[in-house]
């Protein structure tokens, strides 16, 4: 029955039927046409079982934290802080975007939302400073790549739940590679800015400015410490960390910073709930796929097919990375994870690759997919916000992708960069 599932799923998805419905439709067809008599109640049963799972409850919390912060003036505070730190570098605004973006990523779980928030502030500023508009758009798109990599990451929550891997360890594994990527982007943009003669933002570093900006942003900067410190210290689970951080963010945005009126919080809560529902319906649909593939022993078939090419783990790994990269170009990261994980994980495990290591790399690939032409979602977001023609953006994006692939190669060659923190957690 999997013979009908995959072609039908792809057909339905390509004619733009939402992914969740395509999964349900292909699942129903596979079950009806199965040689074994399977009841159709399997479909609602599998969907319900996928949703009724505690770790997923972290998703709306991490989305809500990001939304409250962008509406509550926290974005501006982070940008001011980043300006005080890196403003004295050539092309300062581009570097500020990366640094402030990475702080934003460390607090919110959603990539598209933080790209949009950062873009709506920084794109106009860069264009006003006479940066090339396509280059500026690429800078903002690149700042969104680490949204799925730096914890808390919704994609990591989804991968951890689907693959039964510790979400806490996935979070820890994303920290160093995430900031490594941010650093490499800063280097790239600083070199490019110098060549193009873009000015420094501030003439010199002033420690007074820095401390003022730090104090103004300090309460918001506590959020990653609550989340990661709490998980690392074993005080709470990722879901509990999300709930605690959501309450904390609500209090500082509404009562301390007073930049978010209480009446505007309810629409944000509802919005985060509906965004979560859209993600979770894909997870629910993919759980039907999970049933079909295990029933038909698809992972075993795929594994023996791939192992017939090569038994070298490095080459298999490379192929798997490529699959995730391409998936990241077409669908959002969490959708790619739920669809691919049940098929790919048995292969990963049989090769003796650590599923946490693989998970972090898979998420990085999906992050790179968000800026890879022609379909990377972040490219469309910045093209829309900055009103920049797509073909100009495509000409500027290649150095970014090259550097990202170089970073990826470094992580594969030196797994310690990824695994150092998770292994500390394993004790």
């Amino acid at each position, binding site marked *: 029955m999997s013979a009908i599932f995959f072609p039908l799923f792809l057909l339905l998805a*390509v004619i733009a039927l939402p992914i969740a*419905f395509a999964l349900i439709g292909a699942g*129903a067809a596979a079950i009806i046409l199965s040689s074994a008599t399977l009841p159709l109640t399997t479909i*609602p049963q599998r969907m319900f079982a996928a949703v009724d799972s*505690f770790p997923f409850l972290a998703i709306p919390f991490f989305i809500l934290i990001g939304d409250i912060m962008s509406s509550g003036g926290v974005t501006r505070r982070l940008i001011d802080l980043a300006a005080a730190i890196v403003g004295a570098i050539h092309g300062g605004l581009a570097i500020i975007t990366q640094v402030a973006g990475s702080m934003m990523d460390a607090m919110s779980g959603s990539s598209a939302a933080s790209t949009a928030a950062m873009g709506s502030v920084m794109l106009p500023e860069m264009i006003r400073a006479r940066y090339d508009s396509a280059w500026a758009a690429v800078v903002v798109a690149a700042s969104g790549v680490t949204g799925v990599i730096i914890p808390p990451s919704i994609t990591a929550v989804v991968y951890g739940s689907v693959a039964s891997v510790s979400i806490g360890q996935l979070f820890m594994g994303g920290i160093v590679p995430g900031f490594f990527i941010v650093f490499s982007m800063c280097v790239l943009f600083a070199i490019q800015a110098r060549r193009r003669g873009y000015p420094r933002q501030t003439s010199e570093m002033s420690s007074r400015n820095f401390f003022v900006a730090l104090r103004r942003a300090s309460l918001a900067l506590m959020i990653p410490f609550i989340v990661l410190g709490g998980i690392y210290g074993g005080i709470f689970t990722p879901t509990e960390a999300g709930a605690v951080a959501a309450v904390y963010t609500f209090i500082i945005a509404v009562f301390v910073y007073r930049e978010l009126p209480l009446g505007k919080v309810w629409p944000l809560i509802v919005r985060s709930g*509906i*965004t979560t529902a859209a993600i979770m*319906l894909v997870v629910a649909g993919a759980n039907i796929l999970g049933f079909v593939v295990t029933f038909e022993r698809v992972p075993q078939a795929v594994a023996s097919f791939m192992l017939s090419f090569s038994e070298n783990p490095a080459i298999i790994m490379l192929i798997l990375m490529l699959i995730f990269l391409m998936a990241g170009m077409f669908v*959002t990261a969490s*959708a790619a994870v739920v669809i691919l994980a049940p098929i790919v994980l048995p292969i990963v495990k049989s090769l003796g690759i650590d599923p946490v290591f693989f998970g972090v790399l898979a998420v990085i690939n999906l992050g790179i997919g968000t800026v890879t032409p022609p379909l990377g979602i972040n490219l469309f977001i910045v093209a829309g916000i900055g009103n920049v023609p797509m073909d100009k953006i495509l000409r500027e994006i290649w150095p970014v992708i090259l550097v990202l692939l170089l970073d990826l190669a470094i992580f594969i060659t030196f797994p310690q960069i990824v695994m150092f923190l998770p292994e500390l957690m394993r004790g």
Partner: protein
Amino acid sequence: MGLLRIIDEACKVIVGLAILVMVVSIFGQVFYRTILDSYLGWAEEAARFSFVWLVFLGSASAFRGRRHLAIDFLPELLGPRGRVVLDTVLCALIFALMIVLLVYGYRLTQRTMTQIAPATGVTMGYIYIALPISALLIALYSFVDFFRNLAALMKGDLSRAAIQPNAGMADAALKEDGA
């Protein structure tokens, strides 16, 4: 369309309330464990069941706002008229799928009316029923949108269609926000 709007607003209120219940019970769970060194037995179940209702009713609302994740490669290639035609076909497909989900989801719900959740004592059927209700609502929305699109196509007035055929891809990408 007044009735559909009221239904959608009700769904959104339930989604928001579900998040509040989740926050309060999980926060309570942490508080009991870390500060009081005690245990709040019903908290996890209450949070999980709220989440189930959130996902299924939120899905219905997400469908009405066309916020479900989709590959919008084909719509990008089509003109405004083509997009409305495509949306009409998709509405018919979704309607058929949701009827299947409604029927079998309802059967599953009936079967779970005798199961009791261990910590909260809630009848499981009242949690399962969120799924067929969601299927019913999405079927309803897609049914209405199908005929709205059809009417718009026949009258040649695309602005009355169920989707805004001139919206750019950036809007769609932002709406997706699939993280």
